[in-house]
């Protein structure tokens, strides 16, 4: 029973949707691009909210740290949302250059963020939140998109 596995799997799921969206945008078919972009953003939104509303509060309660790693993760989530907004605008304006510039930036931000979570934060969750796993894991599965995949 771990949090690491489903959450890391969901990162990979989001990565795939990300790569697909970039690919379609580069092809310039904006109808499909807009749909592909929406699917990616949706999956990301669910992932970020599952962390912010479920896992981070549980971690903060268990560790007593609210200004520690989770506050940094929340800060980076906000930075990602800023880039989501730029990508939304680029889709609306049908600007491939703006989209791919913002998505390149998002890729690095997102990947270094994921690496920190997978290598450091999630293993901490696995340890500290082990007693609540029976209660938290089903709730987590309901929130993230890749749970049934």
């Amino acid at each position, binding site marked *: 029973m771990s949090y690491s596995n489903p959450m890391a799997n969901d990162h990979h799921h989001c*990565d*795939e949707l*990300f*790569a697909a969206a*970039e*690919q379609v945008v*580069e092809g310039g078919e904006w109808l499909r691009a807009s749909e592909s972009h929406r699917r990616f953003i949706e999956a990301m939104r669910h992932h970020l909210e599952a962390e912010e509303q479920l896992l981070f509060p549980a971690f903060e309660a268990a*560790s007593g*740290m609210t200004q*520690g*790693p989770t506050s*940094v*993760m929340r*800060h980076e989530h*906000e*930075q990602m949302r*800023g880039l989501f*907004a*730029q990508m939304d*605008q680029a889709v609306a304006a049908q600007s491939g*250059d*703006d989209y*791919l*510039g*913002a998505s*390149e*930036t998002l*890729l*690095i*931000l997102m*990947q*270094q963020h994921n*690496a*920190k979570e997978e*290598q*450091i*934060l999630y*293993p*901490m969750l696995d*340890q500290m939140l082990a007693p609540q796993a029976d209660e938290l894991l089903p709730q987590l599965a309901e929130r993230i998109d890749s749970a049934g995949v």
Partner: protein
Amino acid sequence: MNYTALSLSQTPPLSVPLRFFLTAPLFLAAAALLLLINADALTVGRWSPTMLALTHLVTLGFLGMVMVGAIQQLLPVLIGVPLTYPRLTSTLLHLLMAAGILLLVTGMALTSLFLLQLGSALLLPALLGFILLVWYTLWRSPSTHATVGAMALALFALLVLGGIALWVMLQGGWHLPLAHPLTRLHIGWGGLGWIGALLIGVSYQVVPMFQITPEYPLRVRRWLTLLLAGVLLLWSASALFIPSVTWLAEFALAGLVLLFAVQTLWLQQQRKRRLADVTFDFWRLAMGSLILAVVTWLLGQWFNWPQLGLVTGVLFLLGFATSAINGMLYKIVPFLVWLHLNNRVQSSGGWQGSIPNMKQIIPVVATRRQYQLHSAALLLLLLAVGVEIVPVVRIAAGLWLISALYLGWNLLQGMRCYQHYLRQVGQG
């Protein structure tokens, strides 16, 4: 696990890595310039003062500078432990390294005893302090990722190769014994231990990140750098005590290097992100060069053509290490500029929408052109070593010089973009 050491943000001030990244291309350009001026150096073989200086301008000046700067950035971000006094450490380290390398290399080129000693006196304490600081930080890290082990090995190799260099100089009364028997060990620990292990450790992180590829197999991550360390030790021991079996360890080392290159290309072949990407092109060039370097090294075991050693050197240092690092800089520098702009704007409550994206911070067209120049310079240099015609060496060195300066210029554009934007929003 030490939770209090962990904050996961701790990205050091932008100046900490950037001062190293911006200085490094100048050393690369200096290497190219040295070759342009002494174009016959390539045709007289490996063991000349010019070649010695040229090699160290690339290894210490370019590769070393970038690697030391990048470690200071990576430790807090990926390993989860901040460095103490990052700004002071980086300023001191940068000054000592830049001055030390310049003096040392000039001492090599001019065979000046005084400059060699002065350069070593600055460089050796700086690197020793750096090694100890990073080891201490790695030891405190909560991360169990393979990158931690690879970095620890890389720094051990740096210690060994520096130690050998110092020993050889002290033994020879600071007269450079160019083809000393221990020189081989110095090159092996430098190339495969320090440069190789660090690039392997960084690859574990950045190859899956940049192109969205599968992870390196667990078996590779667990064993590759351990095996590399073990075989390097066996190789050194056999070279000192039972030279007749050295070849065995050397073939094992070649096999490990080959495994890494092929594994990396194989992962990249399965990449999800298939857009044109200059960093990816640099990396394919790097891995292709590494494979070719193994091939030319192997050929050198059977054919007695002295230029093969030089070809292997050019392929390894310029084709493999320089290409990989050049390519990574085009992701790291624009991202750091963006990140620091974002943090500044966010903390002052400003609007983030106007912050330039990575492709605006360093224009893609310029990075693509520099890649073409770098590839052309590499090809021509290999040709030049082969045909041994001075005018061809000159053209190759000229292209290399332009490429190095262009790299520096592109990185500088990133920093200027940072300053320009901050002035624009009234924070500069």
